[in-house]
């Protein structure tokens, strides 16, 4: 098995295993330093970020919304985690020269052509549906997929199974050209 992949990345089993080590360290450090065990996750931060943006236009409305108040709108551990994820990816891609400005990904280009508007619409509408789903299911591939599975949570087995099953079905419809 090769350590470097053809695209210059690290072996995914190795990078994944290191992420497992990171999760263990993070769980331990948050418990001893913050007094509360925090698990890696991402989607709650989108709720907080949405509330911060919405506050600019309708601060009273945000203050009265029960979901926003229950989520506690503040720049917390996970919010900074997500900012860190952006920075970490930027650092990694700039240092190994894999940083690339990409407007349309190849699979999309082949199926839907080079229209930026189409890609933007797909990403935007997919994002709306996915985030409503993630908030309903109370997690995404980070919260359920990584953190929930590590704890053998029943809900995460079901959630991840459905993420994948629905994803395979929809991706098949959207990206596979029918060769009839």
């Amino acid at each position, binding site marked *: 098995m090769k350590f470097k992949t053809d695209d210059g990345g690290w072996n*995914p089993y*190795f*990078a*994944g*295993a290191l*992420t497992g080590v990171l*999760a263990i360290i993070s*769980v*331990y*450090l948050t418990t001893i*330093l*913050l007094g509360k*065990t925090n698990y890696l996750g*991402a989607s709650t931060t*989108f709720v907080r970020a949405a509330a911060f*943006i919405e506050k600019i236009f309708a601060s009273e409305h945000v203050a009265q919304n029960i*979901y*926003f108040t229950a989520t506690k709108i503040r720049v917390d*551990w996970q*919010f*900074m*985690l997500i*900012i*860190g994820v*952006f*920075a970490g*990816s*930027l650092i*990694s891609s700039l240092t190994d020269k894999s940083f*690339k400005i990409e407007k*349309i*990904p190849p699979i999309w280009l082949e199926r839907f052509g080079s229209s930026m508007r189409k890609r*933007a619409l797909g*990403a*935007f509408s*997919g*994002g709306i549906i*996915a*985030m*409503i*789903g*993630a*908030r*309903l*299911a*109370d997690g*995404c*591939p*980070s919260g359920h*997929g990584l953190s929930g599975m590590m*704890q*053998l949570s*029943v*809900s995460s087995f*079901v*959630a991840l199974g*459905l*993420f994948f099953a*629905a994803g395979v079905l929809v991706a098949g419809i959207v990206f*596979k050209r029918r060769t009839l």
Partner: protein
Amino acid sequence: MSTDQILGLLTGVVFGFLLQKGRVIRFEKQIGALLLKDMTIFKFMLSAIIVGMIGIFILSDAGLIKFSHKPMNVGAIVIGGILFGGGWAIMGFCPGTSVAALGEGRIHAFFAIAGMLTGAALFAEIFPFFKETVMSWKDYGKIGLPEALGISHWFIIPVFIFMVIMLFRIFEKRKI
């Protein structure tokens, strides 16, 4: 910055670095997995899960950490899971990887992030409706597989790891 913010930021930088090195954040890899052509993201994710699982259960047995299960609310998990999967397949990113993808220059991830922020704002509006309907159907609460099955986690973990390794062998054999 407070302690929790600094800790979150540092953890995130390492997390983002590893996600990028694993090459799992790209649209091609995400959709590649859903088209069953390139299982890189599952190699990464399942490796992280088995390593993390062993460590987290040892820490938990030693009483050093607490679990944080997400509730097995049937309606919410099933409908939410299906919606997420469908949206994921069109967007080609998940919440965590969208931000990382933007970091490695995939600027179309911006629209995915904008969509997800809109989705989060919409969810906050629809939440009362969901709470009275789908979320009120049946809730088994915050349960783990060991409690649900009534067997020790140190029986389940080796079985889980064995199944994951079998899956890895299939991936390698088929070169996906």
